[in-house]
C-alpha cells in the first residue's frame, strides 16, 4: 500500500490520473443518483396509476355484480362472490401477481342488519391480514373512494413483500359492508428498478475507466518530454553534456525542449571554458614551478660553495652568505608548497596509500623537528595508548601533516612543552598536538587554515614557515577522508587534532580525541 502511495506521489502521470478519476467518480456518482431517482420515480408513478386504474375497475365491477344480484338467493350471491374473487385476482401477462382480501365490518344497507347472514370474509394467497396498516383499513371503512397505501405485508406461505394495497368499501347483498382490498405485488417494478440501477452502475464504471484511459493517454503526451528532460538533466549531473531533447512540434513542450537544449549547450560551453581555464592555470603554475627549479638548483649549489668558504670572508660577507643559504631554503619550501597548493586547487592531488606504523612515523618526525631546532629547547611528550598504530595512508602526506603540526606548535609554544597524543580505535586513528603557548582567539579559529594567514601579523616569524603549512595539512587530511580540527583559547594554548580513517578513503566515525582539551575549564 505504501509502495503504491509513494509511486503515485512520485509520478505526475499517476497523480493526474488518480485525481481525475476521483473527481470523475464524484460527478458520475451524482449524475447517476439523480438519473436513478428520476427514473425510479417515473416507474413507480406509472405503476401506481396502472394499478389504481385497474383496482378502480375491479371495485366498480364487483359493486356492479353485487348490485345485479341484489335480492337473489344466497347461493347466487355466493357464486357471485366467487366470480368477483376470481375476476379480480385474474392476472394478465404483463401484470404482477395480485391478491384479494374481503372482510365484513358492518351491515350493507340501512334496512336492518342481518348479522346472521352469510359472512363472505375471504382472502387469497394466505394473506396475513393482521399486517395490513390499520389506518388504511380505517380509511377504507369510512370513505367512499378507493384508498391505497404501500406497505409491507406478511404471507403465511411465502416471504413478506412490499406491496401496493388498494381498498374500497363494497356492499354485498344480504350480508353487509365489506372492505375489499387488492394487493399488488411490486416484483416487476423492483426488477425493472434493479435493472436500471445495474445498468447505471456499469455505465458509470465503464465511463470512469474510459476517463482514466483518456487521462493517461493525454498525460503521457505531456509527461513523456518532462521525463525525458529529467533523465537528461540527471546525465548532466553525471557530467555527460552530450544529450539533447528531441523537439518535434511547435507547442509549449517544444519550447521547453528548445530552452532546455539551449541551456545544455550554454552549460557545456561554460564548463569546458572553465575546465580549460583551470587546466591552463594549473599548467602555468606547474610550468613556472618547474622552470624555477633549474635556476634554483644552480643558486643553491653556488650559495653552498660560497657558504663553504665563509671562514675566509670578512664578517659581513660571511653573514650574507648565511642569509643567502637560509633564504634560498625558505624560497624552495615556498615553491614546493605553492606547487602542492596548485595541485589541490586543480584537484590532481593523488593519494598513494601504503601500510605503516603511525606511532613510529610520529616519533621520527619529532626527532627530526627537534634536531632542526637549535634556538629552542622544548620537550615533546608522547602519550599513546597503543604501542603500534598500523594505518593505510599516504606516508608522504601524513609525514607532512605531522611536520606542519609540530613546527606550528613549536612556533607558538613559547618554550613550554608540547603534548602529542595518539589514540587508535578500530576504524580511525587520531593524533593531538597541544601547545601551551599564547593560544588562539576563538574568532580566529576558523581562519587558521587559511592560506598565508598569521595569528598576529605584528609578530615576527620565528621559523620562516611558508604560511601554507596548515592549509596544506588540512587538504592532506581531507584527501584521506580524514579531518583536521583546531581548538584554541588565549592563555591556554592551541590544540590541533588530526583524525584519519584506518584505511585511507574510508569514512571516519567520530573523533577519538576531542579538540577541546580535558584540562580546559568548562564554562557552562
Amino acid at each position: 500500500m505504501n509502495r503504491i502511495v509513494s509511486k503515485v506521489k512520485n509520478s505526475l502521470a499517476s497523480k493526474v490520473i488518480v485525481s481525475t478519476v476521483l473527481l470523475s467518480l464524484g460527478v458520475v456518482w451524482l449524475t447517476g443518483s439523480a438519473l436513478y431517482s428520476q427514473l425510479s420515480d417515473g416507474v413507480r408513478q406509472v405503476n401506481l396509476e396502472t394499478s389504481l386504474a385497474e383496482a378502480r375497475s375491479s371495485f366498480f365491477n364487483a359493486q356492479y355484480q353485487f348490485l345485479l344480484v341484489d335480492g337473489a338467493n344466497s347461493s347466487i350471491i355466493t357464486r357471485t362472490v366467487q366470480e368477483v374473487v376470481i375476476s379480480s385476482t385474474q392476472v394478465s401477462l404483463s401484470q404482477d401477481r395480485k391478491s384479494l382480501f374481503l372482510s365484513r365490518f358492518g351491515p350493507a344497507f340501512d334496512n336492518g342488519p342481518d348479522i346472521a347472514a352469510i359472512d363472505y370474509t375471504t382472502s387469497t394467497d394466505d394473506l396475513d391480514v393482521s399486517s395490513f396498516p390499520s389506518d388504511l383499513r380505517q380509511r377504507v371503512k369510512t370513505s367512499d373512494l378507493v384508498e391505497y397505501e404501500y406497505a409491507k405485508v406478511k404471507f403465511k406461505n411465502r416471504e413478506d413483500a412490499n406491496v401496493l394495497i388498494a381498498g374500497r368499501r363494497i356492499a354485498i347483498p344480504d350480508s353487509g359492508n365489506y372492505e375489499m382490498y387488492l394487493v399488488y405485488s411490486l416484483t416487476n417494478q423492483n426488477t425493472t428498478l434493479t435493472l436500471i440501477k445495474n445498468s447505471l452502475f456499469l455505465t458509470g464504471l465503464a465511463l470512469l475507466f474510459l476517463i482514466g484511459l483518456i487521462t493517461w493517454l493525454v498525460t503521457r503526451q505531456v509527461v513523456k518530454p518532462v521525463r525525458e528532460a529529467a533523465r537528461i538533466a540527471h546525465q548532466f549531473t553525471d557530467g555527460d553534456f552530450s544529450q539533447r531533447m528531441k523537439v518535434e512540434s511547435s507547442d509549449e513542450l517544444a519550447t521547453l525542449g528548445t530552452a532546455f537544449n539551449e541551456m545544455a549547450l550554454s552549460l557545456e560551453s561554460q564548463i569546458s571554458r572553465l575546465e580549460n581555464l583551470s587546466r591552463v592555470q594549473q599548467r602555468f603554475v606547474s610550468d613556472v614551478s618547474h622552470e624555477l627549479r633549474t635556476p634554483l638548483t644552480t643558486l643553491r649549489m653556488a650559495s653552498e660553495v660560497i657558504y663553504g668558504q665563509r671562514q675566509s670572508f670578512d664578517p659581513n660577507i660571511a653573514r650574507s652568505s648565511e642569509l643567502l643559504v637560509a633564504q634560498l631554503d625558505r624560497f624552495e619550501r615556498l615553491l614546493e608548497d605553492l606547487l602542492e597548493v596548485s595541485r589541490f586547487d586543480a584537484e590532481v592531488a593523488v593519494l598513494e596509500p601504503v601500510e605503516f606504523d603511525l606511532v613510529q612515523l610520529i616519533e621520527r618526525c619529532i626527532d627530526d623537528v627537534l634536531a632542526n631546532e637549535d634556538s629552542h629547547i622544548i620537550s615533546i611528550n608522547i602519550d599513546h595508548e597503543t604501542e603500534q598504530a598500523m594505518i593505510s595512508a599516504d606516508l608522504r602526506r601524513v609525514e607532512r601533516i605531522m611536520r606542519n603540526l609540530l613546527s606550528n606548535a613549536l612556533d607558538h609554544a613559547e618554550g613550554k612543552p608540547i603534548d602529542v597524543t595518539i589514540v587508535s580505535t578500530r576504524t580511525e586513528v587520531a593524533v593531538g598536538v597541544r601547545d601551551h603557548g599564547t593560544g588562539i582567539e576563538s574568532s580566529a579559529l576558523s581562519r587558521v587554515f587559511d592560506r598565508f594567514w598569521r595569528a598576529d601579523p605584528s609578530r615576527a616569524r620565528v621559523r620562516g614557515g611558508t604560511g601554507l603549512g596548515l592549509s596544506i595539512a588540512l587538504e592532506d587530511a581531507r584527501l584521506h577522508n580524514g579531518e583536521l580540527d583546531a581548538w584554541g583559547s588565549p592563555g591556554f594554548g592551541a590544540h590541533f587534532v588530526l583524525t584519519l580513517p584506518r584505511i585511507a578513503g574510508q569514512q571516519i566515525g567520530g573523533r577519538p580525541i576531542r579538540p577541546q582539551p580535558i584540562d580546559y575549564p568548562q564554562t557552562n
Partner: protein
Amino acid sequence: MTLVMVVDDDQDLAEMLGIVLTGAGIDVDLVSRGDEVMEVFKNNPPDLVLLDVMLPGLDGIEVCKLIRAESMVPIIMLSAKGDTHDVVLGLEAGADDYMVKPFRHASELVARIRTRLRRTNADVSGLLTIGDLAIDVNAHEVSRGGRKIALTRLEFDLLVALAKEPGRVFSRDALLGEVWGYRHSTDTRLVNVHVQRLRSKVEHNPENPEIVMTVRGVGYKAGVMGGS
C-alpha cells in the same frame, strides 16, 4: 680519476655541477644536447652519467635507453619533476637512481655519485648461489644454468645484498639503505622498479619469481620456491 658525464641543457647549472664535482675530485664531461650523448659516450666512456630528463634533441628517457643498450654504467637521472609518473619512467628506462631538482645539498649529490661508484658489498667475496643462480662476486658475474646474465652494477648490488643473507627478509627501507645508501627515504618506488628489472633478467617467469621473492607487507628476500 673518476669521470662523470653531466648531460644538462642549462649551461649555468651544468657549469655549477662541474664546479661542485671538480671540487669533490671528480672529472666532468659536459654535454648539453640529448642527441650528442652517444658520440661522446663512445669516444670517452664515463664511470657514471648524470642525466637531465628534459633535453633538446633527444629526451633524457630515450638517451637512458640508448646508454643501457650499450653499457651497464651507473645512471643518475636529474629531474625537475617529482611526479611519480616521470620518476618511474626514468627508472624503467634503466636509471639506477634519480634526484629531484633542486637538491637539498650539493653534498647529497656527491654522496649519491660516490655510492654508485663504490662497491656497496665490499665485505662479500667468493661465490654465492640462489637455487641454480650463481653469483661470482669477485668477477662480478652472474649465471643461471650455465647461461651468463648481464646486470647493471646496481642490479648486481641488489642481488648480492639479498643473496648474502639467504632467507632474511629485507624491508624496502633496509634495501634503500643497503644498496642506495639512503639514511631514510620514503620513496620505495626505487626498490620496486629495480626489483622488477632484476626479475626480468634473472627469473624464468617474472610473474612467478623463484629468485627474488616478495614477502607481502614486508619486503623481499632471496630464495627458491619452497625454500626457507
